[in-house]
């Protein structure tokens, strides 16, 4: 049971639960700036849990990845997105979620599903924090759901980034982190992706005059 674990383990489980909550908050958030804020909070939580795993299991190299995720996912990428939104004057734009309650319940179903899928893996190993692997799978699926339910390009990018957060979390809690090279590679990939997305935003907007990606499926010659 829970009270047999050390406080560090309990705190890691707490952070895992909070990361799921932040995914749900993103799912229901219709204001872009707040969405980015929640995304930054998820980055902070991720970095905190990485640091805790490093402390608990004495893996010093995880401190580096904790620092990396703090700087990149907690500060740099949210700030880039924030500046993009401000520069493109989107901060008042609402990307309303249709049927928010339905989307939320869909998200809860995804959590149950990912638990069901991960149950055999969890039973195989004695590692205590392995239960969090279903949480990280849930974060990945919730990120996908976010991308599906939104029409706004910025929101979709945030969803994409939170998928990456889920994968990173899975790596940290189940295998005690990937090799440093891989982690660095992924971190910079994400950074490059953020930059490229920024450029794409401008392209999309200059071609269809909006960031509503549903409009991309229409031909531009057709009169609206």
């Amino acid at each position, binding site marked *: *049971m829970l009270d047999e674990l050390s406080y560090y383990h*309990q705190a890691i489980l*707490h952070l895992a*639960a909070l990361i799921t909550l932040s995914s*749900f908050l993103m799912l229901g958030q219709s204001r872009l700036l707040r969405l980015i804020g929640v995304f930054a909070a998820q980055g902070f939580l991720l970095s905190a849990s990485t640091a805790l795993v490093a402390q608990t299991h004495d893996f010093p190299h995880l401190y580096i990845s904790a620092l990396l995720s703090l700087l990149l996912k907690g500060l740099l990428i949210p700030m880039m997105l924030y500046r993009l939104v401000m520069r493109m004057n989107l901060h008042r734009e609402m990307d309303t979620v249709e049927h928010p309650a339905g989307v939320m319940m869909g998200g*809860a179903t995804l959590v149950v599903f990912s*638990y069901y899928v991960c149950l055999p893996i*969890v039973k195989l190993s004695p590692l*205590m924090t392995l239960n969090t692997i279903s*949480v990280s799978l849930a974060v990945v699926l919730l990120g996908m759901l976010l991308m599906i339910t939104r029409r706004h390009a910025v929101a979709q990018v945030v969803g994409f980034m939170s998928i990456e957060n889920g994968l990173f979390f899975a790596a940290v809690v189940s295998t005690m982190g990937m090799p440093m090279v891989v982690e660095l590679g992924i971190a910079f990939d994400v950074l490059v992706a953020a930059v490229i997305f920024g450029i794409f935003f401008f392209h999309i907007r200059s071609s269809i005059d909006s960031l509503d990606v549903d409009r991309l499926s229409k031909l531009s010659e057709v009169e609206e």
Partner: protein
Amino acid sequence: MAWILAILQTLLFIGGAPLLAGWIKMLKCWLQNRNAPSLLQPYRDLRKLWRKESILPESASWIFTAAPYLVFTVAVLTAAVVPLVAVDLPSARIIDVFGLVGFFALARTFLVLAGMDIGTAFGGMGSSREMTISSLAEPAMLMVVFTLAMSAGTTNLSMGMDYVLDSGLVLRPSFVFALGSLMLVAVAETGRVPVDNPATHLELTMIHEAMILEYSGRYLALMEWASQIKLMLYGVLIANIFFPWYIGRDFSPAALGQGLLAIMLKLALLSVLLALSETLLAKMRIFRVQEYLSFAYLLGVLGMLSHIILEVYYA
């Protein structure tokens, strides 16, 4: 002996409820740079109302006059079964948390009936709103109850508190979610600011006030008192389920005194939280309450899921 203590505790509960209401009002006044009324003002109001003549609308049936007594009695009954100062009182064994939710529903039913009974537009509007909100809040509340029951292995309040006390300081993710959910539900059910404003009679926004608009005198006093007890009930539930530390575990005077001090301190702190949120938040539109309560429900579901996923092990 234990039964006498249980009765004393119930009296303390009923007697303390207006004090809590006064304290919250005082905090709100301080936060809003106003002069605060005395802590005892709710008692004076109750006494004043009690002495006044009560006027019945012409169209009122027996439901209208019976409802205040019923609502108040149910509030007292509920207060009797919730552990306030000591855990293992015999009255707490009478009923479990589901019964508690049922009690709340019973009181609400009669409140709503009384609102509709006189046939005014406001009463009907308030009743329909109250029912809408409560039908959304109740599932969330039940989710919290399920989460607690699954962790503690019991639906009895005092046994659940015993479980939390015995297991010491354990960081349970499910309890964090359940706490959040219960707080949101408590705000909605007691008609506090983001959902309803207890301080105004602003015609189109009120919910609770709309239902009791036609009451006066003694009936109004009972209704007001019952709603103060309900507010304190939710406060005590939050404080004693999630932070039951220092509650009296036996019936020695020292333990009881400690329990009394602890619950007063906990309620005082919770009131600070409530007053802060009431000052910082604006009342939301009635159609956004559904979003708010579905978030509470989501938190409850997440609490239960995180209990199953993160706290149960297959060794």
